[in-house]
């Protein structure tokens, strides 16, 4: 289970403190897929980063009772001056798993060929996305955090990602953040909507979708 209790996140900016998340509550059960809908700037990425533990809430509590991935976004979590291969090795070291037996998989999935041995900063957005996803799949978690996964890449790549995530790992929990209701509807058991820092959770994805449409203008 993942429990998010009364979580508030504020950032200090040049024009005062901004409250991005305001008393947010959410529970994620093992194996369940929860979508979080919200418009650009609604705080979707912030909530994902808080759940992952990369950032800490200003107040409130997040309890992780299962292993939780880092936010799988296309492009993030890499050191640009390192090669793709060295980034893979770094991540394997951090998570305590061996890299040598994963290289072939990453090479094949990412279709990077010899570019795997070039610095990540020389990659195109699509190449980064393929590498990011491939590396994300070499460490196993009980819960995957997925941030705007449909943003980059072509159809073939999306299909490969879909098979890896929603077929091979369909027993895992997932928290999927998106502004695309179609994607959430297709893959999630439950959904919640972020509007102005407030999170409203719904048992049915369709109810969340209706709520999201209603507040789309806000």
């Amino acid at each position: 289970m993942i429990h998010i209790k009364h979580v508030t996140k504020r950032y200090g900016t040049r024009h005062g403190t901004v409250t991005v998340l305001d008393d947010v509550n959410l529970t994620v059960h093992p194996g369940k897929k929860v979508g979080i809908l919200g418009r650009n700037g609604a705080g979707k990425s912030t909530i994902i980063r808080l759940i992952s533990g990369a950032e800490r809430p200003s107040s409130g509590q997040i309890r992780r009772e299962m292993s939780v991935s880092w936010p799988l976004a296309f492009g993030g979590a890499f050191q640009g001056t390192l090669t793709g291969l060295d980034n893979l090795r770094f991540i394997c070291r951090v998570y305590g798993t061996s890299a040598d037996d994963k290289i072939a998989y990453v090479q094949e999935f990412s279709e990077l060929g010899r570019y795997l041995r070039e610095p990540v900063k020389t990659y195109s957005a699509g190449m980064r996305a393929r590498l990011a996803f491939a590396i994300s799949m070499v460490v196993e978690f009980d819960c995957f955090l997925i941030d705007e996964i449909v943003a980059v890449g072509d159809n073939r790549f999306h299909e490969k990602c879909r098979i890896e995530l929603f077929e091979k790992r369909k027993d895992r929990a997932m928290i999927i953040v998106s502004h695309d209701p179609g994607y959430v509807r297709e893959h999630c058991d439950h959904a919640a909507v972020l509007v102005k820092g407030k999170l409203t959770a719904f048992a049915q994805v369709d109810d969340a979708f209706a709520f999201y449409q209603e507040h789309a203008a806000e």
Partner: protein
Amino acid sequence: MEDLSSSSQHSSLRASWAIQRRVIGALLMREVLTRFGRHNIGFLWLFVEPMLFTLGVTALWTLAKLGHGSNLPIVAFAITGYSSVLLWRNMPGRCIGAIGPNLALMYHRHVKVIDIFASRLLLEGAGATISFVVLGLFFCAIGWINPPEDIGKVLLAWFMLAWFGCSLALLMGALSEQSELIEKLWGPTSYLLFPLSGAAFMVDALPTAAQEFVLMLPMVHGVELLREGYFGSIFKAHYNMAYMAMVCSALSLFGLAKTRQISRTVMPE
């Protein structure tokens, strides 16, 4: 902090230690690769660079027969002096602005600010130490300097200088995340501190008033003890290790507190 492989709510201290070791190890490799790469002599630069510095300074000081006011062995004087400077000065230099290039890696929750500082400090400490040891052994072997008279004092002094460097680095590194001024001011400050740090003079050769002044600087005590360990029988060293330890403790405390404070606000890229 949760252990990845177990679903237990709280991991033991031991598991946390295992994670921290893994993370620091991973960051060490990342630093070595981005700093030295795989070209020419690669990571050997870690200590070849400080060695070249020290050798250059030793050569200059020997040629200039620096007026240090006594018949001290100039080579041993230069190696002890300049190696100490490298130890305490490079650590803060590497920790200032250390977070920025690593922000993307902080998406992984086990990677903390303190781990980034720790990996850079380990690397700087290792580089300066290897350089100091290799040069010491080399000049002993060719007979330009005598072996240390008291190796215990050399070790203690080196440890204290490293502690001073680490604690100052933690504080400066953390402060530099809050204010860009730190990065701008560290350059001139460290440059001005060099001639005052005891590397290029013996405290005993100074007038009494100046002695009191320079002995306010903690690193001077470390250099004096280091030299006493090397050739203590031919000069009178001035140091107070309790004073140095006190300053280092205070710096460590402030440094760790500040690091903790900024690690709550650091935002992954």
